[in-house]
C-alpha cells in the first residue's frame, strides 16, 4: 500500500475531516473518551462522556474522485450506557464510555464491546434493508385486524426499504467489578475477553454473562498496605494464554494463564530503575503508566507515562529498548500541573500498522509521532485553523527557553485544557483519528 510504513520525512499528513461542533462552550457529555478502528479500518467508533457511541463508516473509494479517499460518515449512533446509582454505596456510576473494543467480523453484523466504570456491554450493529410486508393479522401500521374481516390469505414477502442500521445490546456483563474498569481486551481466541479494574482482572466468555473468572487480584489483605493499582491490561495479539497489565508504579507484568488459575505471579516483570537525579514530589505520579499496547507483531509492548513513551522488548525485562520524550518541557511545571490536576491526565498511545511509528497525544491539541527506525519525531496540531480540505499539517514546535522563533509556541502559552488523550491508527493505512475534546479529527497522508 502506498504510503504504508514510509519514513517520517516521506509522509505528509493532511487534514481530511473533522466531526463535532464548533461551539465555544463544550458540553461535558460530548467530550470524546475513546476512539477505536475496527480490524479492517472500515469502521471507526467513538465513545463519549454522555455514554453514547458513534460509529463512522468509510465510504467506498470513488473512481470519479480519487483524491477523496474514502471519507468516514456517520453509520450508527446509540446510547450505550446510562448513568446508574449504586444504592449501597450511595454513588453515582458514570455513563462515560471508558473503552470500546471491536470483535473481528464473522458475519454480516458488527460486534463491539463498550464499557463504563462498572458494566461491559456487547453490541451488535447490523443493517436492515428489507422488511416484511403483507401480514394477515396486522395491517401496514401494525394494528391488529379483526380476524372476522379477513377473507383472503396471503404470504408475507420481503420488500426493500431504506437502509437502517440497528444497534442492539446482545450481552450485558455486570456486577463483577468493585473498582473502576479501566481496560477491556478481546482475546485472540475470539471467545473470551478480559476486563480490568484498579485491583482485579476478570476473564469472561462472550456467551456467559453471569459468571466471570478472576485471573488477577492485587488487592492486599489490608487495604492500608495498598501501594499500587492496575492501570491498563491487554491480551497478546496471537497467544491466547498471554496478557500484560501495567501498574501505577510504572511496572508491567506479563502473565501466562496456563500456569495457574489466578495469575498473581507474573511470568515476566518489566521495570526500569528510577533515575535518582529526577526524584521529586511527583515521581510516583509521573511514573504511573496510563496505557499499554502490544505491537501488532506481538514482539513488543509500548507504555505511556506522563512524560514519555517507552517500547519494551518482551525478551528484556530490565529496561525498555526505546524511550521517547513526549513533552519533557513539562518536567519543571509539575507543581502547577499537579495543582490543576493535569498531571493525572491519562494519555493513550498507538502503533501504526507496521509497528514502525508510534503516536501519542499532548496538550494544546498537539500530538506526537515517533518513527522507530529513523528516530525522527514530529509534533502536529489538531485545530480548526488547519482544517482546510487536504491541507498539509505543518509541524509544530514548543520553545523551551530563550528566544522564541516565529512559528514556535512557548511552554507558558500552551493551552492545558486542550488535551489529546485518545488517538487511533488505521490498521493498515496511514489514516489517523485524533480526539480533541469534543471534536474528532481524521488525518490522512497525502496522496501523491
Amino acid at each position, binding site marked *: 500500500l502506498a504510503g504504508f510504513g514510509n519514513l517520517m520525512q516521506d509522509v505528509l499528513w493532511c487534514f481530511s475531516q473533522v466531526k463535532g461542533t464548533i461551539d465555544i462552550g463544550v458540553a461535558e457529555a460530548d467530550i470524546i473518551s475513546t476512539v477505536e478502528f475496527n480490524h479492517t479500518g472500515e469502521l471507526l467508533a467513538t465513545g463519549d462522556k454522555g455514554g453514547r457511541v458513534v460509529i463512522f463508516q468509510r465510504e467506498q473509494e470513488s473512481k470519479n474522485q480519487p483524491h477523496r479517499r474514502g471519507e468516514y460518515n456517520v453509520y450508527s449512533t446509540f446510547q450505550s450506557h446510562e448513568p446508574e446509582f*449504586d444504592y449501597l454505596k450511595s454513588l453515582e*456510576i458514570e455513563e462515560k464510555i471508558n473503552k470500546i473494543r471491536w470483535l473481528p467480523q464473522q458475519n454480516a453484523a458488527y460486534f463491539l464491546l463498550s464499557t463504563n466504570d462498572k458494566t461491559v456491554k456487547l453490541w451488535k450493529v447490523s443493517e436492515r434493508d428489507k422488511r416484511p410486508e403483507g401480514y394477515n393479522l396486522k395491517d401496514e401500521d401494525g394494528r391488529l385486524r379483526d380476524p372476522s374481516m379477513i377473507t383472503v390469505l396471503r404470504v408475507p414477502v420481503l420488500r426493500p426499504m431504506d437502509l437502517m442500521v440497528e444497534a442492539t445490546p446482545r450481552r450485558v456483563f*455486570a456486577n463483577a467489578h468493585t473498582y473502576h474498569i479501566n481496560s477491556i481486551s478481546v482475546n485472540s481466541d475470539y471467545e473470551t475477553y478480559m476486563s480490568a479494574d484498579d485491583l482485579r482482572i476478570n476473564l469472561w466468555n462472550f456467551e456467559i454473562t453471569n459468571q466471570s473468572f478472576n485471573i488477577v487480584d492485587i488487592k492486599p489483605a489490608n487495604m492500608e498496605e495498598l501501594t499500587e493499582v492496575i492501570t491498563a491490561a491487554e491480551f497478546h495479539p496471537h497467544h491466547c494464554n498471554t496478557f500484560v497489565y501495567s501498574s*501505577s508504579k510504572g511496572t508491567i507484568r506479563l502473565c501466562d494463564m496456563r500456569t495457574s488459575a489466578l495469575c498473581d505471579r507474573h511470568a515476566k516483570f518489566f521495570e526500569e530503575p528510577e533515575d535518582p537525579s529526577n526524584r521529586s514530589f511527583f515521581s510516583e505520579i509521573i511514573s504511573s503508566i496510563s496505557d499499554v499496547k502490544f505491537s501488532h507483531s506481538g514482539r513488543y509492548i509500548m507504555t505511556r507515562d506522563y512524560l514519555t513513551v517507552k517500547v519494551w522488548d518482551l525478551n528484556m525485562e530490565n529496561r525498555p529498548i526505546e524511550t521517547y520524550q513526549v513533552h519533557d518541557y513539562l518536567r519543571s511545571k509539575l507543581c502547577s500541573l499537579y495543582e490543576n490536576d493535569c498531571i493525572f491526565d491519562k494519555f493513550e498511545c498507538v502503533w501504526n500498522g507496521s509497528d514502525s511509528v508510534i503516536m501519542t497525544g499532548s496538550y494544546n491539541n498537539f500530538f506526537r509521532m515517533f518513527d522507530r527506525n529513523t528516530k525522527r519525531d514530529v509534533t502536529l496540531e489538531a485545530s480548526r485553523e488547519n482544517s482546510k480540505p487536504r491541507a498539509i499539517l505543518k509541524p509544530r514546535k514548543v520553545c523551551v527557553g530563550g528566544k522564541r522563533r516565529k512559528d514556535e509556541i512557548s511552554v507558558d502559552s500552551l493551552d492545558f485544557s486542550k488535551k489529546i488523550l485518545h488517538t487511533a491508527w488505521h490498521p493498515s493505512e496511514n489514516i489517523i483519528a485524533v480526539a480533541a475534546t469534543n471534536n474528532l479529527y481524521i488525518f490522512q497522508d497525502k496522496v501523491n
Partner: protein
Amino acid sequence: MECTLDAQSLISISLRKIHSSRTQRGGIKLHKNLLVSYVLRNARQLYLSERYAELYRRQQHYPDGAPLLAMPACPPPPAAAAPPELAVLPLPTDTQDREARSCGAVRSGAELLEVPVCAVPPELQRAPCRDSSPGFYRATGSAGPGGGGGGGGGAGAAPGLLYPAGCDFGSGGAPHCSSRTTVLDLDTHVVTTVENGYLHQDCCSQCPCCCQPAPGLASPPPTPGTKRKYYPGQEEEEEGVEEGEPGGGGVAGGPPFAPCTKRARFEEYSTEHPQDSSNISNLISIFGSGFTGLVSRQQADSEQPLNGQLCSKQALASLGAWTRAIVAF
C-alpha cells in the same frame, strides 16, 4: 526539580483534592487518591526534614542544649536494638502529665533523632523527598539520655520538633518560631493554617489511636489483630459489594457468588457504618498507619519495626490536627 510550592502548601492542596474527590461524580477514584497520597507522603517527609533541620539549627543556640551538642557530629551506626529511651515514650493520660512527660520523652526522643539529622541534612536539602531517609527514623543507641529527663522545664526547643505548637515554644519559646499547622475542617470545608494553635492533647491522643478512624478519641486503641469493626473499608464491605451485589442499575444477572456469605457480611456492615466510600477511608488509614507501611517498606530490611511504628507515631503526633481532620473522614 524546583517546586514553587512549599511542603505545607502541597499538603493542603493534596488534602483538598482528596476531600473534593468524595463528592465527585462516579465515586472516589482509587488510583488518583493513591497518587495524591504519595505526594502527601513526600511532602510530609520534606516538612519533617525541614523541622528537624530547624530544630538542629536552634539547638546550636540554646545553652540548655549544650549536652546535646556534645554528641558526635557523625553518628555511629544505628544500634541493633531499640534504645530504652524510645521504649519510654509515654502514652500520656492527662494534659499536665502529658506536657511534662511528653516534652521529656520528646526531648529524649529528639536528641536521638537529632543525631541522624546532623548527618542527613545536606542530603535532605538536596533531595528532600527521597524515600531513603532511614537516617531520619533510625534511632542511635549511642545517644545517652543526657538531659532528657529534664522535661518541660527547660522549655527547650527539642519538644518543638515533634509537637510544633504544643509544649515547647509555649512560654519561653523562641519568638521567631513559626510553627504552623494546616487543618482541613470537614464540616465547613475550610482549610486553615493555625499558628501554635492546637491543643497539645490532640497530638498526644493520636499516638495510641493512629489507626482509629472514628473520632472516638475516648475509645481504646484496638488490640493488634482484632477486627476494627467501625473501620470503613474493611473486607466485609468490599466483599459485600462486589459479590453479585446489584449495582442499582437493574441489570440482569443475579448474584453469581455465595449469597449467604454476602448477606451476613452486609448485615454486619450496614449496622455499623454510614454510607462512606471504603476507598477514601482506606487511604485515610494509609495516612494514619499505612505510611508506616509505605515508609518501612522503603527502608532497609534491618529497620526495626518498633522504630518505624514509634517514629511514625511521633511524626503523626506532629501532624496533630491534620491527622484528626483526615482521620475524621
